[in-house]
């Protein structure tokens, strides 16, 4: 069985950044395994701009951002397999890959999980009604329009206000379709404010908050949907149902980290993030298996995916060199106002970047880290939004000697 130092599963934003970072750290024997026809993953279909402001200080489209990393992979001659699917991963860090050459087995000292995420579908949210053609997840529509030259429809309703749905509202409009409305179940949008601004308001597309699709009609092709307003507890407000004529429904209703392989390897997942539970180096419960990018937690900005990949490679290097010395494990206790935290536990007391998402939008909040007796770090935010990930760094000095770590978000 061929043995590699590092195998990276997935050649998208996270996998590419991890590969380049590994090479820069002097790791020579790397293999990227990519399921698709090309490197770059989902960035290839994200042809809008706004990527790279943090990493490259300029606004790039998705393909341009991906190319920056692909060029580095090529220049550094990092090996990769395309059209190759990992079908099995074991806790001993053995992988089985299937491609045109049949099955291949590899073993690695370190596995980096970088499989990204996939979209929630109609089935996952259980919209009743007919089952006609014309219902797409927003990302699939994006792939069809931007990569396959296939227009999905003419009169569009979008359910869910995630960023991909918002981006697609603009894209479809510029391709000549009519976007009738965007309906969002929650009383606030799950997309970034700038996208609501430049993708909906720029084109006078209404955003209906606290609204959802309750019925789908169509024989063969979608002919219309029924939308309804939701009350405070999420129930349909009587008399609020109305029919909307459309030939296409796009769903932008959330992303799920793709962790089937992780589960097979016995990695424990976080029920909230859907990604592996990790320590401060991005290491899962299985020693030597690390995770970064959307397979770990769904990000809103690709720059943060790249940064996270580079950050966990610190740990990969330390692991390979036997420099990861364990301290007693601390499980991070999540207090009010916060939906999740990554990492979920601390083992090494090294400089740590914590990622959070908040429960609901708010103003004038303060994030407080406590060691059980006193606050060890505070950070205030004029505004918080579930759509925007919060990232805070604590130094090893700030974490030294703690036995407990509690985090909460409270009003100022």
């Amino acid at each position, binding site marked *: 069985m061929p043995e590699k130092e590092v195998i990276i599963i997935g050649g998208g934003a996270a996998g590419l950044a991890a590969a380049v970072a590994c090479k820069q750290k002097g790791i020579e024997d790397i293999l990227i395994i990519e399921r698709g026809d090309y490197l770059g993953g989902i960035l290839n279909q994200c042809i809008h701009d706004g990527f790279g402001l943090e990493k490259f200080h300029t606004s790039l*489209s*998705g*393909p341009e951002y991906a*190319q920056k990393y692909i060029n580095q992979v090529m220049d550094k001659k990092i090996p990769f397999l395309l059209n190759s699917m990992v079908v099995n991963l074991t806790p001993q860090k053995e992988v089985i890959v299937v491609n045109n050459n049949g099955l291949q087995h590899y073993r690695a000292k370190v596995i980096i999980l970088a499989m990204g995420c996939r979209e929630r579908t109609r089935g996952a949210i259980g919209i009743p009604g007919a089952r006609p053609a014309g219902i797409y997840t927003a990302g699939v529509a994006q792939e069809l329009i931007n990569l*396959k030259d296939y227009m999905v429809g003419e009169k569009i309703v979008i359910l869910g206000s995630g960023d991909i749905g918002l981006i697609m509202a603009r*894209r479809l*409009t*510029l391709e000549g379709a009519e976007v009738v409305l965007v309906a969002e179940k929650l009383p606030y949008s799950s997309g*970034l404010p700038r996208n609501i601004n*430049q993708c909906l308001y720029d084109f006078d597309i209404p955003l209906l908050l606290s609204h959802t699709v309750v019925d789908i009609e169509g024989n063969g092709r979608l002919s219309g949907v029924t939308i309804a307003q939701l009350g405070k507890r999420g129930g349909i407000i009587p008399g609020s149902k109305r029919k909307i004529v459309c030939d296409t429904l796009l769903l932008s209703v959330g992303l799920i980290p793709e962790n089937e392989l992780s589960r097979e390897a016995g990695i424990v997942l976080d029920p909230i993030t859907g990604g592996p539970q990790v320590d401060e180096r991005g290491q899962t419960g299985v020693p030597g298996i690390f995770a970064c990018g959307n397979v770990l937690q769904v990000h809103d900005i690709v720059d943060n995916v790249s940064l996270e990949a580079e950050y966990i490679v610190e740990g990969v290097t330390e692991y390979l060199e036997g420099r990861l010395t364990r301290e007693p494990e601390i499980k991070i206790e999540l207090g009010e106002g916060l939906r999740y935290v990554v990492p979920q536990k601390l083992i090494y007391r090294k400089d740590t970047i914590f990622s959070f998402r908040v429960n609901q939008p708010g103003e004038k909040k303060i994030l407080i880290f406590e060691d059980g007796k006193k606050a060890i770090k505070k950070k205030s935010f004029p505004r918080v939004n579930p759509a925007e990930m919060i990232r805070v760094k604590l130094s090893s000095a700030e974490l030294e000697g703690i036995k407990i770590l509690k985090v909460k978000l409270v009003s100022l």
Partner: protein
Amino acid sequence: MKREFICIICPKGCRISAEYEGTDIKNIIGDKCLKGKDYVKNEITNPLRIFTGSVLVENGDFPLVSVKTSSPIPKKYLKKIGEITRRIKVEAPIEIGQVVAKNLVSEDINLIATRKVNIINK
């Protein structure tokens, strides 16, 4: 009048307030960088956007090449440029940064490729 803008220049999405009459700006509050201030000035006088889209490719390994305008353009031209890009066809190979169409709508609006497309071997 007074209005709050959400800056679209970077993902921070800063809220910036401005007091103005017509295109006469009296006051801008809450801008955290020069780009934010410029964004609000432009929103009041002449809103600008980068257009992104795609055009058809002949003999390429992708049927489409993604494109953007080489600089921000007046927002009012976005739909018009969308219409034009639907009729453009370019020949592979194409490099990132290559100009694929010139002088759209007004003389200084150019479309550049944002993807590399290789020629397909038939």
